[in-house]
């Protein structure tokens, strides 16, 4: 038996030297390893052997099988490459694209809100929510917006009935929170707001805002600048500069518009920043004493600041999106980009 195996092995060694093509190599492989090949013939002899020899012979056959495979593969590898293509042993192509799992995406506006929440969570701000259908009181009166203010008209606010409206700003949450909680207060309030604007590339009748509020003893405008500066550096980048301009909001005094240096042109001036080098990103100010009066806070003892930003605007700036309508169409080709 042992001899026969040796013979078979030598036979292969001779034959393998003679082959010149892959096709011949395949034929040789069939001759030795095929269903009716040399090794297979040995296998058939197995039952005829005495039981005590079977195991050893089986092992020898397996070893032979391994050796034949190696001899053939080495020879195939040494064949000239032009002979390679057809009938060659299957080669694994590691450059094929991988099989990707289908992973979904959070909406880009959610991503922005989450990022903002994260920055402010690091600064100790909790997340607060309030109703979207609001009493006129929370949207206007308590925020020191006079009863004859133009923003109260049908042109600027959606009404359900007389004194019930769709909130036009997330500042309502300031009041809701302060009514329930004594100072100190440190919250941000993201959410949907509504204004009767005809939809175009820059306007939507529904959009998102994030409101922020910090009330404590000894809080000053300089602290407002500190917190906003920290937010801007963390969110937009360490090299981004902040600029404040005096402005007017009924619920803050002093009030400011906050600009950042245009990230697209690094402040040199481009179409995104209307060639000013600055882009407006949020409104802010010290909480007006009348707002504190509305929620029965002692305006002499406590001071605070509030700020508000448009989520769509910030997302558009960050990703260079030029049409607000894209956010609500939910086209997969859009959503998949973020």
């Amino acid at each position, binding site marked *: 038996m042992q001899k026969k195996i040796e013979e078979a092995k030598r036979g292969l060694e001779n034959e393998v030297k003679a082959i010149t093509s892959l096709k011949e190599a395949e034929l040789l492989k069939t001759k030795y390893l095929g269903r009716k090949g040399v090794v297979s013939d040995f296998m058939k002899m197995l039952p005829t052997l005495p039981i005590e020899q079977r195991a050893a012979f089986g092992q020898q056959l397996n070893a032979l099988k391994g050796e034949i495979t190696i001899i053939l593969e080495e020879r195939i590898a040494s064949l000239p490459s032009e002979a390679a293509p057809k009938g060659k042993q299957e080669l694994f192509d590691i450059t094929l694209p991988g099989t990707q799992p289908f992973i*979904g995406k959070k*909406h880009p506006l959610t991503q922005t809100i989450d990022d903002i929440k994260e920055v402010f969570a690091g600064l*100790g701000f909790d997340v607060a929510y309030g109703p979207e259908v609001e009493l006129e009181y929370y949207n206007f009166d308590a925020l020191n917006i006079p009863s004859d203010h133009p923003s109260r008209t049908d042109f600027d606010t*959606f009404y359900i009935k007389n004194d019930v409206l769709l909130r036009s700003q997330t500042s309502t949450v300031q009041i809701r929170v302060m009514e329930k909680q004594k100072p100190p207060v*440190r919250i941000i309030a993201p959410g949907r707001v509504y204004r009767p604007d005809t939809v175009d590339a820059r306007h939507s009748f529904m959009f998102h805002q994030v409101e922020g509020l910090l009330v404590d003893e000894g809080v000053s405008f300089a602290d407002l600048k*500190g917190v906003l500066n920290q937010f801007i550096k963390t969110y937009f980048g360490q090299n981004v500069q902040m600029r404040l301009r005096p402005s*007017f909001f009924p619920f803050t005094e002093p009030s400011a518009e906050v600009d950042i240096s245009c990230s697209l042109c690094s402040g040199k001036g481009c179409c995104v920043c*209307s060639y000013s080098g600055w882009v407006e990103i949020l409104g802010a100010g010290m909480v007006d004493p009348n707002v504190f009066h509305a929620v029965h806070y002692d305006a002499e003892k406590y001071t605070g600041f509030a700020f508000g930003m448009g989520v769509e605007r910030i997302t558009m700036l960050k990703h260079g999106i030029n049409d607000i309508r894209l956010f609500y169409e939910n*086209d997969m080709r859009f959503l998949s980009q973020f």
Partner: protein
Amino acid sequence: MKISFNWLKEYVYFPLTPQELSVRLTNVGLVVADIKQVEDDFCLEIEVTSNRPDCLGAIGIARDTVAAVGGSLQIPAVTPAVEKGKAADKAALAEIAKWVTVSVEDTMLCPRYTAQIIQYVTIGPSPEWMQKRLKCIGLRPVNNVVDVTNYVMMETGQPLHAFDYDKIADKKIVVRRATIGEEIVTINGARRALFHDMLVIADGKKPVAVAGVMGGRDTEVTESTRRILLECALFEPRQVRRTSRALGIASDSSYRFERGIDPEITEYASRRAANLIQSCAGGEAVNGFIDVRSGKHETKKITLRMERLNKIIGVEIKKEVAVDILKRLHFRVLDETSHLIDFEAPSFRGDVYREIDLIEEVARVYGYNNIPTKTSVSIRGSVKNKYETVENDVRRLLTGVGFYEAKTFSIVDASVLQSINLWSDVSGLDISNPLRLEESRLRTSLLPSLINVKRYNANHGTERVKMFEIAKVYLAGEKLPQEKTCLSILADTDFLTVKGMIEAILTHLGVHSKCESLPFSKPELFRDGRVAKLLLDGKILGYMGEGSSDLAFNVPPCLVELDMDLLVEKANFAKNYQALPQHPPVFRDLALLVDEEVAWASIEKAIAGTKVSFLKNINFFDVYRGKQIPAGKKSIAFNLCFQAQDRTLKNEEVDIAQTTIIDVLYKTLNAELRKQ
């Protein structure tokens, strides 16, 4: 508000380029949005916030320029006013009374009305310099008189109107409300019906102007005009706004009246205009200045505490600096101690009446960008609320298994599809002033919007979608509606895949209660028989099912709407370690032949009823219907996992338990064991 750079320089000197000036003005809150070169001049477009109507005239901008860059304000001199009540004044009034009488019927809506008469004017083009300035700020020159009224408005912020005196009937000006049926043709040629709540300027017969909004064509100044009645008045802001909106006319005049005019500028503006008319159109003013005024501008003492100023701003500002800033803004010091200063605000600053308003004035002129950026806010760890955690987890899980998040409008149309309401029987809340019918109602379900999103994507090349939205639905309530936060899912996959995903989410959120599925018969949205009401501890978690064929998709998607608030309530993030089992489990596979009507839930329930203490799990395999299964029957295959905490189970005890279970299933559900 547009302003000419050269014009501004007439009131204040500054050695700055337009760009340099723009930066300085922007820093004090007068944002220069645009600078345009116009011939040898520049037009600066300034964004004036609604609290600063005093800056709707060049002089106002000049005042803030002085505050921002220093220098002193030069205001054009006018014919001095005659002291009221003196003999000379009385004689003059008697003279002008022969020309015209003015009566104001509603002093609330018109607190002040002044009139002058100028005769012998020659109408023609206004002088070159004036035309140039008006053109620079985008105003079209008309004639010398009209140009003067525009020029003075742009200078002082006070609108004026010139009537052709000879076209005023009965030598009478009456400021009154319009009567029903009255109308007017305004100078822009439009015929307008007037209503009782509108204030008009009328002559003896009819309205000749809509107060504060626009003059009438019949009395406008034309080439043949020889005598002018010059109106300079104060109208109540809300009244002007209402009228302007109702008529759909927004003019430079209404824009200013709506925001409020300096109550003390009236006479100056009128005299300035009269002087300019005389120099531009010739003529001679009739002696006398009619001034019908009710009440007087009340000044108020405002006290500034230095300590408060520094507390709010967060930096030590010296008293002299603060006082200097406020003086430059024309605030008058009434009294001062080392820490307190009493101020009186100028008449044109109606927006400043409290200490905090003074603080803002100091801060903005001091420069917001000169205030330090402090990082001394105390440290505090933020507290994460449960809702946030659940919402984040749900988003993470769903996106992880291939779902995209959509955001759709809360305001929808009133169509049948959008009227779907799984949560209550009342209809959605309507908006009383919608822009369009497409957005006129608050939604009661998110699913119609997701269906529309699927349709949109199908029309744009994406046939299959898997998406979700977390947002509110609005269910009519007492005063305010109930705002229920929903998690809605639309998936182009089968029922059980979606159900499995919900179960996986529940498991992940640590919801211990079992989610039960009950038949549900609200068929509008779902395919009959393929819809379930999901319950957690008897509370409605939500609804899920295959979409109805009425939705007209090739393959209807699976739809889910869940109550996020219940999910938050039931979520449990406390995780207690369970000791790993020490003894091996024993598995037994079973296949039962049951009637079609027998639900899996009843099999589970029956098995649970046997109370085999070491039965650990029941794992469903599949349902089979085929040749070997009689009609009306089905085969349900599952496996039972037995495992004890304290010992290795013996085959015999598992056999007994299995027999008990099979017996119970036979007795309660007529379930027969299939031969394997």
